[in-house]
């Protein structure tokens, strides 16, 4: 062991440790660390790996349920599908790398989340992503948008995994710090899930895939400080989707192999976190010889090898007598593998460079002893003022014809069509996409083995979360469930990606805590377990936090993928508005933001019981075939929802008894319990009343026919004009 060192503040900053944290580490260890150990401690104690600010709050999430096969703590979560299968899924952020190098940042984000899924023994069948940028009329934001979209597309397209859904949003708060969250869903045999386990002493550590280079050293710590541009240049990794494809196929070919004990992908903090996590799960130790790791560059130090974040690498734990058989499979796929060490019984991470021991740290110190911070959170007076502002006079100042208001909304960045984005993603590969992007509230995949429908969605309204994180967090969950219900699916489980600013700021911490509380309460009320997730803090630029963005990813199912509906009106059907609790409001609405430039007022509060009843009606009606289309009323309110149904169905809406005035609350207000459905014309109103019972309120809006949208007393708007406005936003 090398001699202890006395550390300067700058050296500590480089590994994102505070002086107090370092002192705590020294006290627990009983001695000072050497440089290698310091880097490893910093990485494992970073927010990114150690969740030191978020872990105490994450405990609020309900994580158990009868359908849960794997909860948080593994590479991904898993819930039970029919036919002995499991859906394996997780979402992950790649915000900081994408801010600097959008193409590679986004591409490697996709690569990372895909590895998490096949590591569990699941074949990835769908990708989604949730993206946030600054206003698209600014050149730098457009550069980031187009780079990220190309990166997401090229990587997923090469792997042959369809990118089927997600969301793209814009707000000034993301100007210097875009959000790039990628979600992957895979299907595995329920009894064949693979875990990242080290197992018995003597098991062999096999490192497979790319050679190790100097790229991405300190990626984990870099994502845990607040100015990505200033702090760590040169930490960006470069993706190689072809190599990942080979790794994926080889690892899936090894499924069921009696020789493989565990699999773990190398992500943040590379070899360090992957080996430590495997050992931590089984209370083992690991002994690694870095001189056996194949390198891309000469002269790399043990420190660099242990902390490199070179992409497309996997760690396998293999029984000693099975090493040759496992390596043979990798050779078939022209993949290189190195035996780099073994599992030990002493609970220690021991790193050697040939004969010299360069690190000896207890696994426990790196995982269980991570400092945890519980802070005081508090909203600022300025935020409270914005939220409590009376928006009535502001709303009254809008003096435009209704049809003009609607066209302005349809042509606004958050509402307008994202076709330009999703046409760059291969969404038909896999011959399983029943409802792809643009056609429904959730993407619907047919499970190849069983014909079951698996619905997937990502949601978050960050403006709601900014102004009221509790109802906003709740709303993200309810909206995701509602979107699943609109294709006829019931939720099975939830994953999330919590994107926030610097948690050391009281307002950011308040946002984080309240959002999690809101999400947790909604999950509990609706019976949805949280099975995986990711936290991305320190999303700031120029000292301003991004809007709080707790993105929800949800997976649901319906027994038969062919019994589902999209959002497009069916010609000749009757159109109804179903409501299940909660009043629409213009507070925090898209209408207010687009037409007055103000983001203010109290966002809508979900009524969870009423929402649950509404979702039941939707699922039953879609299953039984009398609901022919369904679309939830969200950003832009009822008028935008109707316009989207007309555009998707290429048919107008003739209103009859519906005689709305020009009340913006009714037309453009947002709330959490409303859905527009079209119903088979053979179903009479009496019949409909009997089918719905007390489960929801309903109101007939008219019939889907003709080529114009008629909004009560407003002038009829040609569907072609709606389409033109809607498609005008991007590129």
């Amino acid at each position, binding site marked *: 062991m090398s001699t202890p060192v006395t550390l300067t503040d700058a050296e500590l900053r480089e590994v994102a440790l505070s002086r107090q944290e370092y002192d705590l580490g020294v006290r627990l260890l009983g001695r000072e660390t050497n440089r290698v150990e310091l880097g490893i401690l910093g990485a494992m104690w970073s927010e990114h790996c150690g969740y030191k600010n978020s872990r105490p709050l994450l405990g609020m999430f309900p994580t158990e349920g009868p359908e849960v096969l794997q909860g948080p703590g593994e590479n991904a979560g898993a819930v039970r599908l029919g036919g002995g299968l499991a859906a394996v899924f997780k979402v992950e952020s790649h915000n900081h790398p994408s801010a600097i190098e959008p193409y590679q940042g986004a591409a490697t984000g996709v690569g990372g989340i895909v590895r998490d899924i096949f590591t569990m023994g699941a074949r990835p069948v769908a990708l989604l992503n949730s993206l946030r940028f600054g206003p698209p009329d600014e050149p730098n934001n457009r550069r980031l948008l187009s780079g990220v979209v190309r990166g997401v597309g090229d990587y997923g397209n090469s792997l042959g995994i369809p990118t089927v859904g997600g969301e793209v949003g814009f707000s000034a708060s993301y100007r210097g710090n875009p959000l790039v969250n990628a979600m992957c869903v895979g299907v595995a045999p329920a009894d064949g899930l693979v875990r990242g386990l080290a197992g018995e002493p003597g098991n062999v550590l096999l490192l497979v895939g790319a050679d190790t280079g100097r790229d991405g050293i300190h990626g984990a710590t870099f994502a845990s400080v607040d100015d990505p541009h200033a702090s760590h240049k040169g930490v960006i990794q470069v993706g190689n*989707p072809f190599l990942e494809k080979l790794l994926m196929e080889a690892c899936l070919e090894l499924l069921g192999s009696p020789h493989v004990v565990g699999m773990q992908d190398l992500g943040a903090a590379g070899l360090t976190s992957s080996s430590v996590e495997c050992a931590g799960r089984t209370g083992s130790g690991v002994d690694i010889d870095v001189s056996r790791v194949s390198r891309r560059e000469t002269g790399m130090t043990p420190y660099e090898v242990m902390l490199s974040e070179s992409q497309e690498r996997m760690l396998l734990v293999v029984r000693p007598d099975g090493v040759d058989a496992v390596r043979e499979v990798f050779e078939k796929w022209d993949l290189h593998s190195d035996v780099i060490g073994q599992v030990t019984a002493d609970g220690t991470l021991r790193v050697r460079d040939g004969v010299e021991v360069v690190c000896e740290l207890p696994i426990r110190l790196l995982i269980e002893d991570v400092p945890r911070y519980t802070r005081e959170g508090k909203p600022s007076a300025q935020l409270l003022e914005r939220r409590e502002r009376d928006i009535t006079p502001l709303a009254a100042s809008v003096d435009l014809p209704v049809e003009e208001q609607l066209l302005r909304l349809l042509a606004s960045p958050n509402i307008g069509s994202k076709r330009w984005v999703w046409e760059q993603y*291969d969404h038909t590969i*896999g*011959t*399983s996409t029943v409802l792809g992007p643009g056609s429904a509230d959730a993407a619907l995949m047919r499970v190849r083995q069983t014909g079951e429908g698996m619905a997937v969605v990502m949601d978050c309204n960050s403006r709601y979360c900014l102004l009221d994180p509790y109802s906003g967090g709740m709303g993200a969950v309810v909206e995701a469930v509602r979107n699943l219900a609109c294709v006829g699916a019931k939720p099975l489980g939830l994953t999330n990606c919590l994107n926030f600013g610097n948690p050391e700021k009281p307002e950011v911490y308040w946002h984080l805590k309240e959002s999690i509380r809101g999400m947790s309460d909604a999950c509990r009320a609706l019976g949805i377990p949280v099975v995986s997730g990711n936290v991305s803090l320190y999303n700031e630029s120029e000292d301003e936090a991004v809007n709080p963005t707790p993105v929800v990813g949800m997976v649901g199912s319906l027994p038969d993928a062919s019994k589902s509906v999209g959002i497009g009106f069916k010609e000749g059907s009757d159109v109804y508005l179903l409501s299940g609790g909660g009043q629409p409001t213009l507070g925090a609405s898209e209408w207010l933001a687009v037409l007055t430039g103000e983001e203010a007022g109290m966002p809508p509060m979900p009524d969870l019981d009423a929402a649950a009843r509404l979702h039941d009606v939707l699922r039953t009606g879609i299953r039984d075939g009398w609901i022919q289309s369904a679309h939830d009323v969200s950003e832009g309110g009822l008028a935008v929802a109707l316009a989207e149904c007309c555009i998707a169905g290429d048919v107008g809406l003739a209103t009859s008894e519906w005689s709305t005035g020009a009340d913006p609350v009714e037309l453009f207000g947002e709330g959490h319990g409303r859905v527009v459905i079209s119903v088979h014309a053979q179903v009479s109103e009496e019949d409909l009343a009997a089918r719905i019972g007390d489960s929801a309120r309903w109101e007939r809006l008219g019939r889907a026919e003709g080529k114009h949208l008629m909004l009560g007393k407003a002038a009829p708007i040609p569907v072609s004009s709606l389409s033109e406005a809607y498609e005008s936003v991007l590129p």
Partner: protein
Amino acid sequence: MKVGVVTFPGSNGDTDCIETLKLVEGCEPQLIWHKSTDLMGADALILPGGFAHGDYLRPGSIAQFSPVMREVARFAASGGPVLGICNGFQVLTEAGLLPGALLRNQYILFHCAWTHVRVSSNRSPWLEGVEEGTVLRMAVAHGQGNYFADTETRRRLVEQGQVAFEYCDPEGNTSGESNHNGSVDSIAGVTNEAGNILGMMPHPERSSDPLLGSADGRVLFESLVRSMAAGAVGR
């Protein structure tokens, strides 16, 4: 009838082909690994979509060196039916088995959408019995599908009935708008002179199930079964 589907390491449409062929009566699909030189008695071959060897160089350019390709060429020379879909089409042009080349899409970006193609010539076992002028709705998904051939080659292709498909609108009319990737003369698929090798950018295997958006693509596989049963393929 055995249909072999070649898996290059970066192929990603191979399973889709297998799953679709399973639903076509008379087809017995099987995978063939690119390092193999044994076609396992296949009566027809499909080179599927994907990124054969990563394709960081020109798409399909390295695939011609995969061991299986010598056998594919031999099989094709003896008149065996070969279908190249998307990357498979790129591989066939790079290997010199089909005329022309696939360039980057006119608007540069990868493009995934539903398009229509018109059957311009049915002089192939993959299209036998399909009326010329038939419009098929098909999925496309590629970044480099912009077909190019020089004027003289194109004249020959048309004269000899080698232009199998053209991009068109739902009514069967070709225009700049329906030609989504900028292919010369809206060409979406071509055959060799004998007609047994067909290359196309659209994905018939993704367009073979009404629940997924179209079943029009199935006609290629059904035609193959018919023409094989009729002994129309001279091998």
